[in-house]
């Protein structure tokens, strides 16, 4: 069973979302997603400064098996990307929810996060898969 922290929000496309104290929102892929993808070999981060809408494909993660899009969980502007992933994309496999964060968003509206799934909804979502 994969790990699903209760303090985060989730999307159907397996991103996790954390509202930080400074009002930015950190995004990564879930433990379930990294397990399904297998060893990650490359992350193509989004361009800092771009405004994107919820559901936009903004980033690509590539594993030995597949290359998958990461989607914007909410509307907002990309304000930071994780520089460590350039040389060590496998950090996502080892630490999906902490060191393996992928990018940070300045949300257009913080409340949008409330629309996303909580841990228990996400858990039943992946059980249904």
């Amino acid at each position: 069973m994969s790990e699903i922290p209760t303090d985060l929000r989730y999307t159907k496309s397996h991103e996790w979302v954390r509202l930080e104290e400074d009002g930015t929102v950190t995004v990564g892929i879930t433990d379930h997603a990294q397990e399904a993808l297998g060893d990650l070999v490359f992350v193509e981060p989004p361009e800092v400064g771009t405004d994107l809408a919820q559901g936009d494909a903004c980033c690509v993660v590539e594993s030995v098996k597949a290359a998958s899009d990461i989607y914007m969980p909410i509307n907002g502007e990309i304000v930071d990307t994780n520089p460590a992933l350039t040389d060590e994309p496998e950090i996502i496999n080892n630490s999906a929810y902490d060191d393996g964060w992928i990018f940070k968003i300045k949300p257009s509206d913080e409340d949008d996060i409330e629309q996303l799934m909580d841990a228990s909804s996400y858990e039943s979502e992946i059980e249904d898969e």
Partner: protein
Amino acid sequence: MPFIPHTDDEIDEMLSVIGIDSIENLFDEIPVHLKIKGLEKVPTGLNEMSVNRLMQQRAAQDGQPLCFIGAGSYDHHIPAAVWQITTRGEYYTAYTPYQPEASQGTLQLTYEFQSMMTALTGMDVSNASLYDGATAMAEAVLMAVRSNRKSKSRKILVPRSVNPTYTHVTKTMVKHQNIELVDIEIDSATSKTSMDALNAFSGDDITAVVISQPNFFGTLEDVDAITTWAHENNILVIAVINPLSLAVLKPPGIWGGTGADIAVGDGQPLGAPMSSGGPYYGIMTCKKAFVRQMPGRIVGRTVDQEGREGFVLTLQAREQHIRRSKATSNICTNQGLVVTASTIHMSLLGPEGLKQTALSCHANTQALVEKLSAIDGVEVVFDQPRFHEAVIKVNTSAADVLARLAEKNILGGLDLSELYPEMKDCILVCATELRIAEDIETFAAALSTVMAEALK
């Protein structure tokens, strides 16, 4: 592996297992109005004897003219061993393998090919080849749009000195993808890309610029200055090269110090006969930073669990069998057999042989230009440093001159006025290493006669 077709019984059995009546039913998701009703215009089959006869008749129409036309397809010597070896059973397939790891020999050959291409171009990576030079340029444009993330304009600057057929094919391939190709004027005195025309775009959001070296007129472009200008303006550089010329010219990997970002070209000069326009193959190389945006297959060298060397298809996650509609390209296969021939050709010639060939082409073309320009009514138009092509102008109808030469069994060059209306009565000529002094003499004598007749 022999080709074993299914028998009718086997087909019926398979259809009954999946519960449909006919093979046609497998395609019922294709709307009826898109289906071709019949292939009336395709003739029924001929037996081998009739096909031989037909082909011999058609081949006889070509004759054996003395060819001084280049313009993208070049008449080079191909050692007899090249196709003798290429057509051995072990090599004789057009495909990159579908079960690659079981085809180590084929993979190794492709790996050697890629190594030769990176050595020639000075670029970091090469793919296993593309379809031809023109489509390689189109793929390079698409790749530049994916790679230059700083640029939002999807505008590509294409000088008119790039082979116009390449530009035409590229337009066809990108026109529905919201990519704009912007014509850049050439300097009418030199045929080179106009630096003034480029400077007009300084500071603008431009995705990439295409530079052809040598250019369509055989002239050498100021590749260093253009590359430096492009990189100062965050513009990617797509080099279109003749691979043979790189045996003597500066490789795109170091143009302007920073180097071209993508280098493409047609592999025909390296072991493929002119053969009415194909099959040839496309070369594509790039900087390592852009490798994940590169279309086509890439063979890598690695070691297995026990440390033994082996070859694999690498970076496949970006290919269409995995990434589906988001693949970097819809390129399905490459020109495996022509690439095999080309790799053998380069192995036989070696770096020194390639260099000698390139130098002979250049020397013969210089001799040709000298002889032709000495004829009354003939002048050299762009007297610039060149590789193995040049433009001459006749003071009468070029079409008429070429027709008269053809009667004497000489293909005297390409009439440029169709592609460049402003170049009336200009002819693009080429002399490869095969057009030795005696041939040049024959051409000059014939042109002299033709000009004297025309000027009467």
